[in-house]
């Protein structure tokens, strides 16, 4: 589908046709609506979380064309024809599944609220950096806050997913 026109102006209605988890979804919202609320409230995909609204905590992290992106400050009119991937679909990729398995193997989650975003950031990191150093993990994961303090296990799980064995 080349140059899909994702904005349709029909009378006063402005709709956006978004490519989310491989499916085209059309939504009728203002163009400055954050993608986060389109996902959560319009499309009822609640795996992506609201935490701060200012890209300070990473709970809302999704992938846009594979890049970890804070959906709380990403307006729907900026998405265009890009592919949006959310936590609901990340397990459908080999790397996503591997990260989720590492998260389970190492008992990472506690309250779990931030973990959608943590996992999306970790998958994006490993996709570009298959064997991250501690410093690279810090860089990639620093934007994802966990108030339960699961950071030791997050680090270990990323290394486990990278190496496929115990860190």
């Amino acid at each position, binding site marked *: 589908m080349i140059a899909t026109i994702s904005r349709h102006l029909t009378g006063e209605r402005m709709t956006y046709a978004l490519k989310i988890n491989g499916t085209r979804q059309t939504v009728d919202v203002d163009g400055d609506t954050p993608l*986060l609320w389109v996902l959560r*409230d319009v499309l*009822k995909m609640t795996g992506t979380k609201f*935490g701060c609204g*200012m890209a*300070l905590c990473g709970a809302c992290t999704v992938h846009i064309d594979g890049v970890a992106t804070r959906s709380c400050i990403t307006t729907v009119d900026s998405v265009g024809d890009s592919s949006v991937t959310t936590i609901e679909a990340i397990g459908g990729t080999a790397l996503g599944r591997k990260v*989720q398995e590492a998260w389970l193997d190492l008992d990472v989650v506690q309250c*779990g*609220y931030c973990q959608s975003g943590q996992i999306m950031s970790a998958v994006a990191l490993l996709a570009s950096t298959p064997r991250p150093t501690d410093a690279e993990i810090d860089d990639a994961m620093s934007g994802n806050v966990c108030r339960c303090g699961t950071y030791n296990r997050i680090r270990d799980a990323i290394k486990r997913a990278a190496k496929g064995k115990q860190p």
Partner: protein
Amino acid sequence: MMAPETERLPLSVARSYPARLSRRSLLKVGATAAGGLALAVALPSWSKAASKENDPALNAFVRIEPDGRVHLTIPSVEMGQGIYTSMSMLLAEELEVDLDAVTVEHAPPNDALYANPIPILRQQTTGASASIRGFWRPLRLAGAAARLMLVAAAAKQWNVAASTCSVKNGVVFDSSGAKSLPYRSLLRSAVTLKPPAPDQIKLKPPEQFKLIGRSPKRIEAADKVSGRTQFGIDVILPGLRVAAVAISPVAGGRPRNVNKAAALATKGVRQVVTTDEAVAVVADHMGAAKKGLASAAITWDDGPNASVDSKMLVEQLKRASEAPGAVARNEGHFEQAFSGAARRIEATYELPFLAHAAMEPMNCTVHVRKNSCEIWVGTQIPTVTQAAVAALLGIPQEAVIIHNQYIGGGFGRRLEPDGTLLAVQIGKQVDGPVKVIWSREEDIQHDIYRPYYYDRISAGLDAAGQPVAWHHRVCGSSIIARAVPALFKNGLDFDAVEGAAEPPYALPNILVDYVRAEPPGVTTGFWRGVGPAHNVFVVESFVDELAAAAGQDPVEYRRNLLGHNPRALAVLNLAAEKAGWGKPMPAGKGRGVAVQFAFGSYLSLVAEVAVDEKGTVKVERVVCAVDCGLPINPVMIDAQVQSGTIFGLTAALRGVITFKDGRVEQSNFDTYLPMRIEKAPRIETYIVPSAAEPGGLGEAATAIVAPAVTNAIFAATRRRIRRLPIEST
């Protein structure tokens, strides 16, 4: 993994056998609607409702359905502490079923059924690190009783003695192993049997444990890594609207001007609602609600608290701390011993207001109908909330239905009904269900804050440096007096002095008193670690000061004061050993230690810090030794030690809420600073094997980490930190 809402067994028809169990527990059994076995262990009643009926409350509610599934209604709420898993383990252990045979259900509000029996709660509250402490025994009794009845049913069918039968994974075998019957085929028969007499229920000895002491995966972990877990904020209902809310920036203020027309002109906005203290914009989605709220350009009447500021509040506390308070403990003769001491040491310690800042912002979904109200919220206090909503709406408590939810971090914030009450005030003006979500800024600026404490502490030492007199005066607002007034007695707040009144050390001539001083315009509440999170910092810092004054090693000094307290001494020794205490450290680095008994658990924690030329502190390693009695799930213990450590460390290093012009100065994660991964130290947990009664752990490490770190800073720099956060001094 959550089961759909199911009807509770009508307990009025459950057969009741007033057999006495140890600790005056009772067992009740009955049939479930689907023909399964329902069973509860009743503890002595704490609730008014139950005492009226003179009928002990049932508080561990288990159903085994004909499909073989075991349903456990969990009285506590899951907010990361792992209680749904640990409670399921306790039941499954004695019932002899696999953990994955257990389905958990959030409990509806009902103190008669689900009150935590520990004396400081006695209601359906998840707090005080009390879930395991309150429920480990009832759950094991329930599991064991059900197993005994199912075995008895099989034995009856085979016409053999029950004692010759055995159970494995929910299947009863005869002595030869040739005959077997699964639980699901025994339910109808078991229901007709008399529950075992109390002296027939023997809990498993530790050597037979299959689950306790092991670390099965969290039952909800798979859902949490795939975004499937439904938190309160994720509730979706037919016709649901969402609402963004602005609350008066000054406590007690009111909205003055609201441009409703501008808000309503926003696409997707349906309604603008005002309450005494807030404005809410109701919309189809939160993007529209927030945009509408911004365009409403709200102005406020600030009210009487517009001049509140932190300097003034601290000055008030400082003055209040000068006068004697309500006595929490007074043994020996402090004044006499202090004035006769070879050396006298005095200090003041200050701890700031703190917000909870859980990752899931405050939210609540309500559907207010004519004579009833339905609520979806993650709450640590379902019954208190239910009563408060009933009072607000003037309807009977039973007309308020609460569906508890997984909580994205509680830390004490969800021990308050304020978020639900605000949602109800909004929801009663909305036709249909509405989900009210606070912004992060509202969440931080309208928290119910950990109190500011201004403590005075003094000690006299003898010629050998041993303490001969100890006085700790705690000064700060009383959470208990506001939140649980019935427990505020003679001016004493037991929570405010917890960790101060009973330090683990042998301290002769000890006086501990409490001065209540309420800051105007600030509501204070429970914060992870509660009393100990403040007092352990003061006590452990000051013990370190005494060791330094005596010229003694901090570990050795503590050892000498713990001769009477073997479990505290053991964790201290274990932490010191694992941390390599005494090994030389390079310049600019130091080790600090602390010891604590709180929530029924003993901890000792050693922190290693590096302090650079600019004074920047980096915590490099944390070693924690834990004696929490019988360890139920070691991985969960380790996780709670790590979690509590990070939470306490975050606050100790940089956590502070301040007020200016009546307003909270911090607003989001750029000003109320969370710890991020690059600052998190490695945390090592060492568990002391024990068969003692389980203690609580959800809050323990939060309380102990700050003094270990400040003591380490002292070791590295000779700089003593007496006011938190560290980075402000």
